[in-house]
């Protein structure tokens, strides 16, 4: 029983940390632009594909040793996807920044479809086996099984999240991003480079998303062009649950979602004496989301309706 508890906790933490990495991208973009970036799930997918490409070049053509090649491929892929994110913002969102609020969202839907279709054409629509980034060793902890892969994912995700925390709360760049997020016109009046701050957000968000994608693909051993859709929706849900626009909220929401999902799978059949099976997991998850939003419409850590969102409401 204890072993099972430990194991399910680790399962939830693993999937939760991947959700969190992606949810951060949604929430940061919303924070500065009040826009939902539907193409963000595709950054997650691109991360896996770019890493796979870099890795096959490094190992196949350059002949680099395994462990170094993996580290290099991971870093190259996340930075590359970060730059792709900045490029997408420049081309698809920036020209629409002063039009209606719906325009950039539709644009992001278009970007999302183009990226999925593009990868389908280039790499084929079928799922591809993905190499493991960590050697898989099993540890038995009081009857529960934990793999080195899960530990690796947890460590990598927490390092990245702490990195983000320091970047946002302790660095000058972070101050600028927070200022823009608080009020874009005021920040601009104070001489802050608003475009730079937005580019920064579109660099860091996709970078974290890509890292999530690589960890995810290497955890499950598989990647496909459509992998961003389902997981992107889950991460988006996590961001809403935690309060969209709030960075700690996205992390909290991601872990709550993961624990509810795992708990639902584990406990639903037991609690209901087999009436509701594990397939009702998503029903439970979204029922909880609806309940939370009924009580706290802005999400768990979201700020209450601000003056700015009232202005936006009037625009519709």
């Amino acid at each position: 029983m204890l072993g099972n508890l430990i194991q399910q906790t680790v399962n939830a933490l693993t999937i939760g940390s991947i959700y969190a990495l992606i949810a951060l991208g949604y929430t940061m973009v919303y924070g500065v632009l009040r826009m939902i970036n539907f193409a963000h799930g595709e950054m997650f997918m691109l991360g896996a594909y770019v890493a796979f490409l870099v890795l096959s070049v490094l190992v196949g053509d350059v002949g680099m040793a395994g462990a170094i090649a993996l580290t290099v491929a991971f870093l190259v892929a996340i930075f590359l996807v970060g730059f792709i994110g900045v490029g997408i913002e420049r081309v698809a969102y920036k020209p629409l920044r002063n039009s209606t609020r719906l325009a950039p969202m539709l644009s992001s839907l278009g970007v999302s479809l183009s990226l999925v279709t593009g990868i389908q054409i280039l790499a084929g629509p079928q799922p591809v086996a993905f190499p493991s980034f960590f050697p898989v060793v099993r540890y038995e902890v009081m009857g529960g099984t934990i793999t080195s892969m899960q530990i690796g994912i947890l460590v990598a995700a927490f390092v990245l999240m702490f990195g983000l925390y320091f970047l946002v709360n302790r660095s000058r760049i972070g101050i600028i991003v927070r200022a823009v997020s608080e009020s874009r016109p005021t920040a601009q009046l104070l001489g802050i480079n608003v475009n730079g701050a937005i580019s920064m957000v579109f660099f860091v968000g996709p970078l974290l998303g890509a890292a999530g994608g690589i960890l995810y693909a290497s955890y499950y051993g598989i990647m496909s062009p459509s992998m961003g859709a389902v997981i992107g929706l889950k991460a988006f849900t996590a961001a809403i649950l935690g309060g969209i626009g709030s960075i700690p909220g996205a992390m909290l929401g991601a872990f709550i979602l993961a624990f509810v999902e795992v708990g639902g799978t584990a406990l639903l059949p037991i609690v209901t004496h087999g009436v509701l099976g594990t397939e009702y997991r998503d029903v439970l998850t979204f029922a909880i989301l609806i309940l939370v939003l009924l009580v706290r419409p802005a999400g768990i850590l979201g700020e209450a309706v601000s003056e700015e969102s009232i202005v936006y409401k009037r625009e519709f």
Partner: protein
Amino acid sequence: MRKFTATLLLGASLFAGPAMAEQTTIGLSAPLSGPQAYFGTTWHNGFKLYIDKLNAEGGVNGVTIAYEQEDDKADPREGTLVAQKFCDNAQVVLGLVNFNSGVAQSTLPIYEDCSLPTMTFGSNPSLTKQGYKFMVRPVANDLAGALLPAEYALGKLGAKTALIVNDKQVFGQGISEIFAKNLQDGGGKVLDTIAVAPSDVDFAAVLAQIKPKKPDVIYLGAVMPQLALFAKQMHEQGITATLIVPDGGYTPDFIKQAGEPNVQGALVAIQVPPMDASPAIADFAKLYKAKYGEDAGPYSIYGYVQGQILEQVLKTTKGLTREDINAALHAVKVKTAVGELEFDDTGELKVAPSYLYKVEGSAFQLVGSK
């Protein structure tokens, strides 16, 4: 225009007799993109291989065969669009349709309405029990497909307990229920049945619940890539039960995506004989490789067999209308590469072969057949 050609063709068949060069069209529908594309394309390739050979020899009784290939994406919504397209095309007299039971479930009523005979590939037993007059199934249904693995688990593996996991789809749930029933009839015990969502990739939580139950075998009624994902995670969590999966696992991708060490000993049940089972099958495998430059896919042999059935149908049919073809199809009795085939009143095969393979290294070894 279409009507005009149709009248022309009808006129030709009325006045010219069978010696005149005629053409008939077969509609092909299967997943040609997405995770199951490998199954769909290689199945159709087997059929095309035989048809191209027939056409090169001048057709059957002077009738050459054309085909129209469509992608149903393993999705009932796409499948029904394709079905409507074939129905509306008067040239199409026979459908070689729908790899997936779930898709066939929604397209068969459409084919029935426009009297278009089909050779349906979906293996869910209920498909032939709905009174369709225009369908036959030239492949073993899941009743046969899930009997062999249950017998093998009880007999050869000495298994006493099983745990069933399915993806709640027409095929996955259907076949796993049949497996469970066969196992219980043979004296085995089903510890629990767990349903997962068809798009799930994370089975860690489910597996953690399965582990303390310590089943001897786990039957997974699902399709790719879930089969590979489940096998991999099952091994990583240290579950040593024998995994049994249906036909979807009979692809090199199953071993590659799960990782070779993670699927050793897993059992795959499928209606396809090994490619060296008989001289006829070995010949087919050679022809296939020569034409497409790769080994035959899991169901290519059945595409080829369906070509052989079609040849016999065209030899015996009274005319080239949908009704005539349907009558000839139901009455057909033909020696094919997988043995002599004929259909009963419901369109089901009278004798349907099924086989069981075990993953050893990076290959599938035959361990049983029925």
